[in-house]
């Protein structure tokens, strides 16, 4: 009896998804759907928050006031993105602090791109252009994700992302058209961030076992390889336009397919970074942990103050 009931619920759930009816927090959903979303949305939130660190590194050293104001606004947006997403994950019944503790203990992952160091100002250009560019590719289809609160958060995020990519490209094109040293800095940043940016789309489809279920649930709309290909196709001409060279000797345009063919991705490097052995993994987690631990007395004091005020009001 109970089993047929569950089956009926699952059938009705899938029928809703197939009709593009959004799932809302209090609706019935399969446990696996809930778990998948909690994992994906919280890891997305962590990526936004950890992603503030490599760029935060350059705020005090921005070359002029305009660049500084722009970078500050961009990093503040990323904090906002993290908060929209933590708010979405709470609608699934997840505990916000517990998901953050999972990040700090290493149980939860975040985008591995943020484990690379930002060595020069040009990296602010490469990150905005390539990393935010790749993030936009990933996030635009998520605006139509079957889970309402996630989709709505993504609509806000995508609106804000477009300036992120433009400010990065502007930095890159300014440097690329500057002195030979400036151009070399831009090229060096592109060399270091190109391959990690391609890895942001995740493993090849053949090595991505959960993808099909996520597609059926309309959490995911395009495969990793499809999104990566689109990213390469739109980004290569942009690099050419500003006179920079994509660091891939195998890159060539295929007239027949209308797509660029690109060289093999170093998946060993990808998995090493995911496992925690990238150049900055330890620094990133330490910075997040410090922020939480050192801020604890402030959070406690604010709460105590409010409790005292309520008690006074009651008496």
């Amino acid at each position, binding site marked *: 009896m109970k089993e047929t009931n569950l089956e009926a619920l699952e059938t009705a759930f899938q029928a809703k998804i197939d009709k593009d009816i959004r799932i*809302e927090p*209090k*609706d*019935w959903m399969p446990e696996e759907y809930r778990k998948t979303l909690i994992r994906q949305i919280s890891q997305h939130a962590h990526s936004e928050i950890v992603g503030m660190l490599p760029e935060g590194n350059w705020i005090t050293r921005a070359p002029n006031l305009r660049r500084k104001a722009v970078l500050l*606004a961009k990093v*503040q*947006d990323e904090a*906002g993105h993290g*908060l*929209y997403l933590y*708010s*979405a994950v*709470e*609608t699934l019944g997840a505990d*916000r*602090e517990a998901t953050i*503790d999972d990040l700090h203990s290493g149980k939860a992952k975040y985008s591995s791109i943020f484990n690379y160091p930002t060595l020069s100002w040009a990296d602010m250009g490469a990150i905005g252009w390539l990393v935010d560019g790749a993030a936009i590719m990933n996030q635009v289809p998520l605006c139509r994700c079957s889970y309402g*609160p996630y989709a*709505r*958060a993504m609509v806000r995020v995508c609106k*804000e992302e477009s300036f992120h990519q433009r400010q990065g490209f502007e930095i890159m094109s300014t440097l690329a058209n500057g002195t030979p040293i400036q151009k070399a800095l831009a090229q060096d940043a592109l060399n270091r961030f190109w391959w990690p940016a391609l890895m942001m789309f995740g493993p090849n489809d053949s090595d991505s076992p959960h993808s099909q279920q996520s597609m059926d649930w309309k959490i995911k709309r395009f495969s990793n390889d499809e999104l990566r290909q689109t990213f390469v196709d739109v980004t290569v001409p942009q690099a050419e336009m500003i006179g920079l060279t994509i660091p891939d000797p195998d890159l060539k345009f295929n007239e027949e397919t209308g797509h660029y063919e690109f060289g093999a991705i170093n998946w060993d490097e990808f998995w090493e970074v995911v496992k925690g052995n990238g150049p900055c993994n330890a620094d990133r987690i330490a910075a997040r942990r410090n922020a939480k631990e050192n801020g*604890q007395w402030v*959070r*406690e004091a*604010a*709460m105590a*103050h*409010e409790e005292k*005020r309520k008690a006074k009001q009651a008496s």
Partner: protein
Amino acid sequence: MSTKEWPLWEVFIRSKQGLNHKHVGSLRAPDAQLAIENARDVYTRRNEGISIWVIPSSEIVASDPDDSDSLFEPAASKVYRHPTFYDVPDGISHM
């Protein structure tokens, strides 16, 4: 964790004069004043609002999706509540 978590607040924003406040999301804050200040930073960085409401999430009472048939189905069959239900002869205007 020894400390109590800050409570959750639902945030509603009026985007411009003449429109309703609309739910935009939630956030955590220790009290109402800070909830409003945080909502300003999180949800109105690009002139999205001119007025903010915050309500403790625990104070919201919501209908149950399982009751939606009994709550909303009765309205579905009452097509005569819509003007399109009625025949109006050709030539009649202002109606």
